[in-house]
């Protein structure tokens, strides 16, 4: 029983890391209907910027603020040079644009800051903590706590502020939003900046775990099953999806692994996503359109 609980909790905590990556996608997808393939590159760019600043001797807090600033400027640039010229084009056009964007950002990141693996020390010790008989990783706990805090902040932003209500209005009906004077370009700038900052948080946690390097941008591939399970349009869905993927991976590795020779973690999330596509294609929390006839 303890082994089961330990595996489950470890999985859930690891899952919040997936959720963090998935939230960045949901934000942009909701506001502009674009599947932002460049989210992983943004995550890598943010982590690399932070690490490089730290290596130059910039204090942690200042480095964090500067990186946030860089992500905001990046969002403004992307909106101006990529999104605005392509407004009203089909979704696939925008998707291809973000695909190209991901190469540009990755190239820039490595060109400016080098391609070698950097260690990122956030000052969180990865020591095991014991709750009774159950062992939990301290790092995982901090990561989960950060994810929770971020989600609460986002919920406040979306539900309690004028910008948040406007963001949701645009997500619901772009044309109606335009007709009452909401500035779409401004909204996109804000959403991409917020997604960039979420990417920064995810990038730091993932970077601290596996080192800051090119492969960091590949964590987005893990976000895909999370989104399919949770739904592309719901932040809550991204969280639950991440938890499900994290827990399922860990449990499968522990209990199914020995039966079929192990190595389940890399593919189990995709298998799970496939199952969801069969039984619930909109995801658990995906928005089906509300329509009155």
């Amino acid at each position, binding site marked *: 029983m303890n082994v089961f609980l330990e595996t489950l909790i470890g999985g859930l905590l690891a899952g919040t890391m997936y959720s963090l990556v998935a939230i960045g996608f949901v934000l942009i997808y909701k506001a502009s209907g674009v599947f932002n393939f460049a989210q992983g590159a943004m995550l890598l760019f943010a982590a690399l910027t932070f690490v490089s600043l730290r290596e130059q001797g910039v204090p942690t807090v200042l480095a964090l603020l500067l990186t946030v600033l860089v992500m905001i400027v990046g969002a403004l640039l992307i909106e101006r040079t990529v999104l605005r010229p392509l407004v009203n084009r089909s979704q696939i056009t925008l998707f291809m644009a973000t695909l190209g964007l991901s190469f540009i950002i990755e190239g820039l990141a490595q060109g400016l800051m080098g391609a070698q693996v950097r260690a990122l020390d956030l000052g969180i010790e990865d020591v095991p903590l014991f709750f009774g008989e159950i062992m939990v990783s301290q790092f995982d706990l901090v990561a989960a706590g950060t994810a929770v805090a971020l989600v609460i902040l986002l919920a406040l932003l979306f539900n309690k502020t*004028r910008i948040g209500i406007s963001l949701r209005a645009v997500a619901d009906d772009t044309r109606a939003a335009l007709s*009452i*004077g909401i500035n779409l370009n401004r909204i996109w700038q804000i959403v991409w900046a917020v997604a960039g900052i979420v990417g920064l948080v995810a990038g730091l946690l993932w970077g601290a775990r596996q080192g800051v390097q090119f492969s960091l941008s590949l964590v987005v591939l893990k976000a895909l099953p999370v989104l399919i399970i949770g739904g592309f349009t719901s932040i809550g869905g991204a969280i639950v999806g991440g938890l499900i993927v994290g827990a399922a991976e860990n449990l499968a590795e522990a209990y199914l692994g020995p039966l079929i020779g192990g190595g389940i973690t890399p593919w189990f999330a995709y298998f799970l996503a496939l199952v969801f596509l069969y039984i619930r294609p909109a995801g658990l929390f995906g928005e089906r359109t509300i329509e009155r006839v």
Partner: protein
Amino acid sequence: MSNAIQARPAASELLAVEGIEVIYDGAILAVADVSLRVEQGGIVALLGANGAGKSTTLKAISGLVGADRAQVSRGRIRLGGEDIVGVAANQLAGRGLVHVLEGRHVFSHLSVEENLLSGGFLRRPRRGELEQDLERVYAWFPRLKTKRRTQAGLTSGGEQQMLAIGRALMTRPRLVLLDEPSMGLAPIIVEEIFEIVAQLNAREGVGFLIAEQNINVALRHVHYGYVLENGRVAGEGPAAELAAREDIRHFYLGGG
């Protein structure tokens, strides 16, 4: 009247559309030649069958044609004497022109109150000011107040139409473009909505340009009407005059 005087917009002109042509995707002609006028505080109907070009005309005025990959390729549109062709829709809302789209288009996942608030943000009002505007809209549409916390997508068609109009009022418009407000609604609700619109016009001086297929209701509440056919103005006149014209009735009963 001399030409010099004619060329100057009259003091009471709110909206003037002069010979516009609208083309979709660079090839499809939706509006061939439409001219119309709304006076300061006027209430005008744009009548015509499906596909006559009513919605496109409204979108051309509000700047939303751009979002449909269409453009005004000829003619002029003036709001309060200023040329507005090519001005973005969200900027026009700031200048007092707001468009209530066909089919309501409320923000269905937002609450009724959030829908209304979203219309007020444009002017960056203080909190108290926003509350006041909200109460003013609730005074016009008391039904919305009872549903303020309901998700807008779950309210009835009539309530959604009221919400769309209320949301537009939150921008404090000089001119409201209202596209097919009667669509899919019970006659008694249609009557209620037109009654409120006429009152808004009479008491607060808000100008209205209303595209409608429902000629009877529309002509009972407006001052003046234009009839569109195949993207052109086929007739115009004071409401009472149009209502009495046999050919227009005939046209609407499907006799063509």
